[in-house]
């Protein structure tokens, strides 16, 4: 066995990372194709507020993140209706609220402030057993729901009006997508970091879109790329001193995306 896998914390890190790399693109594909990529950012900043809240009250930070980010996506949905055609304002308002709340709450955290820091940029040494089990359970839920609602998610993403006419419960599907995004962001904030999780949702999908020949292939390739970035990132951060996993994973993704766009020469309008 490789030395890296002899440590319990690395085994946990790999297990959690592999799960996140499956669910982030599963949920990222409809989000990106609906041009809602910014929702990942708004949710992750709200998740951060939840983490701070959790640390302050002594409840598990990931649980706090799940609660806050779910509230955030419902808030976005509500505000989108208020702003009508300027609905992107909703995303920015929720993101600002998340950052503001995190800043205020962090001032009151006396113990574990370094813990909040680890959630900003991700950490592999800090995953507790409870967090690992939580990630497995939530990850499996996201995977199963994504698979069960595969054809509905595709139809709503491709053509919302036509899917509504065919009888798809569009409102419910959109809400489920948002909640799954919130859950994905929350569980991923541990390893990748809350500030970078939205890039793990977007970059693998953006890379896959350049070469995929179907919607299904887009998801499968995005999962493959996400696995590639996270596993390579974990290996590198283990063997190279002081290299943070979250940043490494995201930067590997960005480099891959740039190289791929040069190779395919694809220009997006």
């Amino acid at each position, binding site marked *: 066995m490789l030395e890296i896998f002899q440590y319990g914390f690395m085994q946990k890190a790999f297990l959690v990372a592999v799960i996140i790399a499956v669910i982030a693109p599963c949920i990222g594909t409809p989000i990106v*194709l609906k041009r809602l990529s910014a929702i990942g950012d708004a949710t992750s900043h709200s998740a951060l507020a939840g983490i701070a809240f959790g640390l302050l009250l002594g409840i598990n930070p990931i649980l706090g993140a799940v609660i806050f980010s779910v509230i955030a996506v419902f808030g976005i949905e509500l505000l989108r209706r208020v702003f009508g055609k300027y609905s992107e304002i909703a995303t920015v308002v929720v993101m600002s609220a998340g950052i503001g709340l995190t800043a205020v709450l962090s001032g009151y955290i006396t113990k574990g402030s370094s813990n909040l820091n680890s959630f900003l940029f991700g950490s592999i040494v800090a995953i507790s057993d409870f967090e690992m089990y939580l990630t497995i359970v939530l990850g499996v839920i996201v995977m199963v729901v994504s698979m*069960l*609602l595969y*054809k*509905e998610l*595709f*139809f709503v993403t*491709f*053509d919302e*009006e*036509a*899917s*509504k*006419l*065919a*009888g*798809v*419960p569009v409102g419910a599907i959109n809400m489920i997508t948002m909640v799954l995004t919130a859950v994905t962001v929350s569980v991923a904030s541990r390893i990748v970091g809350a500030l970078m999780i939205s890039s793990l949702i977007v970059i693998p999908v953006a890379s*896959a*879109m350049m070469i*995929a*020949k*179907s*919607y*299904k*292939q*887009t998801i499968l390739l995005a999962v493959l790329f996400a696995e590639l970035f996270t596993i390579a990132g974990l290996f590198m951060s283990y063997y190279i001193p002081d290299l943070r996993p979250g940043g490494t994973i995201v930067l590997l993704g960005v480099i891959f995306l740039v190289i791929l766009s040069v190779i395919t020469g694809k220009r*997006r*309008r």
Partner: protein
Amino acid sequence: MDNEILNVKNLYFDYTDTSVLRDVSFTLKKGDFLGIIGANGAGKSTLIKIILKILPFNRGEINLFGEDLSKFKDNFKIGYVSQKANSFNSDFPATVREVVMANLYSRKGLFKRYTKEDNEKLKKVLDKVGMAGFENKLIGKLSGGQQQRIFIARALISEPELLLMDEPTVGVDAKSVKQIMDIICELNKQGMTIIMTNHDTPELVRVSNKLLIFCEHGNGEFVSRNDLTVAEVNDIFAGKRVHHHA
């Protein structure tokens, strides 16, 4: 009344401060082809959206397949084709198969998977619109005319009895317009009831057996095409001639 597909009675619709539809009435039977003629903003698309339940109406009555519109739930009985090719996001990574089969939802419902039989249906509808063999092509890579034929196939895969088309030939080249009109006429010949809006009045007068004409300053006039020439239709449209309901 067995063959009655759609009955619209004294229908009114207002946008906040503009009256769009006023006292519109007509009946369609199985196999009818209704052409809707009118200027931009006259209410053609509004009427289609009301029948599709995208817009609510203010006053009147609509019966679809003998049922009150508000209670109508058999979505698969209705096919809809819009000016999709025009506003379509060509960078969306979806194949023809994925796009067309999506509309089987109205037959299958939540969670159900596609079967071999569904694949046969896909082949059949693609054949019908002259796009056989295109299953695995990316829809964004097709021409505007080909994309629109794919959207017709998508509407057909749920085996609808009524097909609503809102300017389906907008933004499509002349050769494709003819192909699309031929496909629509063939479907009508096979017994499908069709409602279609189109800015090409002579073409619509040629293919339809019933016309709904939104005059420039008046109500919708419902006429049977058989008694009218294109010139007479234009006269009604311009308000120079009033047609009396048969």
